[in-house]
């Protein structure tokens, strides 16, 4: 049973899922830091 690596669909799903998770993670923690610093001031 062979499989030729990741096909186009696989890449699309992998990149979309990873990018959306990383994007939201950055958004959240950036906002956490901003609000944290604002409250400190």
């Amino acid at each position, binding site marked *: *049973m*062979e*499989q*030729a*690596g*990741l*096909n186009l*669909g*696989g*890449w*699309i*799903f*992998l990149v*979309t*899922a*990873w990018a959306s*998770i*990383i994007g*939201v*993670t950055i958004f*959240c*923690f950036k*906002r*956490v830091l901003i*609000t*944290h610093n604002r409250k400190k001031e």
Partner: protein
Amino acid sequence: MADLQSNNREAWASRIGLILAMAGNAIGLGNFLRFPVQAAQNGGGAFMIPYFVALLLLGIPLMWVEWSIGRRGGYFGYGSAAGAFGTLVKSRGGSIFANYLGALGIAVPIAFAIYYSYIESWTLAYSTFSITGKYFGILDRDNMLNFLQSFQGIKVSEHFASITTALIFYLITLFLNVYVLSRGVAQGIERLAKIAMPTLFVFAIILVIRSWTLGTPDPAKPENSIINGFGYLWNPDFSQITKAKPWLAAAGQIFFTLSIGTGSILTYASYLKRKDDIALTGLSTSITNEFAEVILGGSIAIPVAVAFFGLAETKAIAQGGAFNLGFAAMPVIFQKLPLGHLFGSMWFLLLFFAGITSSVALCSPAMAFLQDQMKLSRQKAALVVGTVMLLCGLPVVFFLGHGFLDEMDFWAGTFGLVVFAMIEVILFAWIFGMKRAWAEIHEGADIRIPGVFKFIIQFITPVYLIGLLLFWGIQDGIPVLLMKGKDAVHQPYLWGARAMMLGLTVVCVILIAHAYKRGTIRHETATD
């Protein structure tokens, strides 16, 4: 944030500590073992469609609901659903009824913790076995499965003469859980999360890098490669998602991974202050969990299994379930890697950290109830919880081969979560009222949640949950209830598991009645 709330309840010491503790609550064995198996079995990349739909329509809305109920309950001095639910209902009778329903928010997580901590103890044991090389020399999966079963006392082999080793690791795990709980929120749970979570992420990243750089471990078998492993996990099979199975599996995975419906989020949120943000913090913990699950969890076990065993055998491993992957396949792989002792130990320690941060969370509703409503000291409450876990955990240890653990997993760890989540969302969105619920979520919020979630929480999430319960009830619930296909030899043990869970719920109901008598649960809405 300070260590005490205005009503003298404990509180989180810092926001990062809270995020790590909540993430620790969510990140568990499911992220690294259950998710890749579910994805591989249910359409690969295409599984991500029902998975993200369930995340957006069930996971994230329910997470905000549970955070909101918890913070509101904490404001009135309640740390569990028994008390917190009552604050959502105007009428006195309704409030009392809601609080009695809250018994599920203590009994379900403690039942969950009872069997979960036993599985957690296997990871601690296997971490030690990796360092000492106890399983080294067993180079095929079947014999590794025999090793696991003899460790669990199901079979006798040359590796373990009795169940004693498993029992010792179980007692150590139980002790560690009780110790953390006895130290309290800031000094125990938060401190554990601050150590365990960064360590878990460092270990996971090291293992992901090792996985990515494996290439083709055996040049004679070029099809056994890491890229084919990613292909197996991610290449979409759209024919799968036209069936009901992946949608149910995705919803189950979202429940399991985000610790929704366990009541533990509610308890952790009860240690917040009235004006502390929950919208952004809740989202941050959920996305941290998704990072650990999809990016890290999806990059280790299954791709590595394909690289070493090939596609056909990995499919068989995945069909065998998460334990087969984690405890039978992975130890064989570590023996084929340079520094296998180290990577093996890292893998199982990672699972242990993921497990312990979740199990202490599962115990926290019972801890909070004993402290807030029964007025026990933290240490005494931890001792009571530890004793209950030990007494109820011993049948799980000794009757594992009879399906005792699986029975608890179905009723407490699967069915119970959905029922409890449904009660939460109906109480919050329909009884408390969506207008007030929306304002409650946004109290002190650092972000504005898109308005569409108001509609989702009120209509889509409850309908989704009812659909899930109906499907599960018909497909799995009735056959499990009737013990279809279960050997008559095992049936008394399964009844025993049910009786134990029912007994835990009845005890919680009696304790709630006692709390009413003592006046530690009151009718609160008038003071809102």
